[in-house]
């Protein structure tokens, strides 16, 4: 059984809704970029 199949229906739908929301990837990408920049500045 794959990992997603173990999740109950509601959380799985929630994760799918977030993962397919373009709006989510914009701040996440910016956050990763910020962490990368911070690492360069250390």
């Amino acid at each position, binding site marked *: 059984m794959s990992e997603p199949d173990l999740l109950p229906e509601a959380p799985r739908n*929630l994760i799918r809704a977030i993962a397919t929301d373009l709006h989510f990837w*914009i701040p996440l990408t910016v956050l990763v970029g*910020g962490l990368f920049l911070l690492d360069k500045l250390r």
Partner: protein
Amino acid sequence: MNSSLPGAQAASAAASAVPPARLRSLQSVGIFCGFAAGAWLGGAEAPIKLVNPDISPITVSFVMVLGVFLARWSVPAFLRGTSHLRHDVRQAPHLVIWAVLAGCMWAVANTLTVYAIRNVGLSIAFPLWNTNSLLGILWGVLLFNELHYAGWRRWLGVLGGALCMFAGATLLAVASSHQAAPGKATLGIAAALGAGILWGTMYIPYRKAYLTGMNPLSFITFFTIGEVVTMSALAVSYRGAAPLWHELVSARTVLFWLMLGGFVWVIGDLFQQYATKYVGISRGIPLSNSNQLWGLLWGVLVFHELRGAGGNVYAQVAGGSLLMALGAVAIALSSAAEREHSSWRDAAEREGRRYGVEHEYVQAGMEGRAHGTVSHSRTALDWLLIVGTTALFVALAVIARLPRMEIGMGWAIFLAFAMLALLSACGISLWRTTRFR
């Protein structure tokens, strides 16, 4: 990208219009919150000025975030009780993830500003990260239908006002900076721009939450988890656990001022959250950025930062302040009309469909009215949060020491009084209009 949560409760019905009188009240209270946010966010800089500059900036940021964490749990417990939190999470559980993400972004941005100031000085760094308001306008227009059908006058008011405030911020930063910009300029500029991009993009989760109907008091409690976890990880990885602890112990006489700065900042941020909720990010962020003006007032009047400066510096301060004030007034006079608000409702409906949020919950959130029957009484946990936070602040205040520095006490009392007057007036207005919803 069209997936949505199933369920009969999903917001499928067309969102009904908010009555015009109600819309005007919400817009006015949102604008008022933006101005109050500027005063309290700017005032948060005052206690931090009392701290010895020998303490590492990362440690300063870390202790402030601890104060922020305590305030963000105890203030909502005091205002509404934590029962509302459970209700909001049941209605829109996805927003917990969005709030934690926003908190992580804030902590990284705040740490970047430390490097920016160190490498290029405040005069260059501050205007660069203040570009967050311009980015906020872009996200508001592109993602959340803000300024749609707004007409050229409102576009001019908001965009022109934001640019005006940006120009004013630049002048103020140049005037108030005494540091010469040292080397490593490219990295410093990258850090300042990075902070601006992070802070400007952080408003995507904010707007997402408030369009869907979440209460700002609930959002910030989860926001602060991302904030404190990220800041703790950064502080431990940069300083090391043992050196960090030793620094905290040796700085115990100033911990109160740092945590007080965090507490004051939370009050400002709360107003900023309500401004974002009721007037959107394109208007809420520029208004909150008037904090620079208040920070300057504290610096000049209370801490005598421009003493001995030439006429040129004072001219820059006067010009910058005037530009910021004019920009803020232009934005305040460009609040959303019915047609623009209807496109906000379209965006809210889209969010409700995607995440399966009950239509009535979304609608009630937009109108600032109650949804469901949630107990207003405080639980034992609420009292524990309130009493515990108060006791910790009292204990830190007992061991706190004021540094030997010249402080304009009369002006400090006057500015503190002005902030308290704004807090009372805006708090009462918010309570009367929305009951802190």
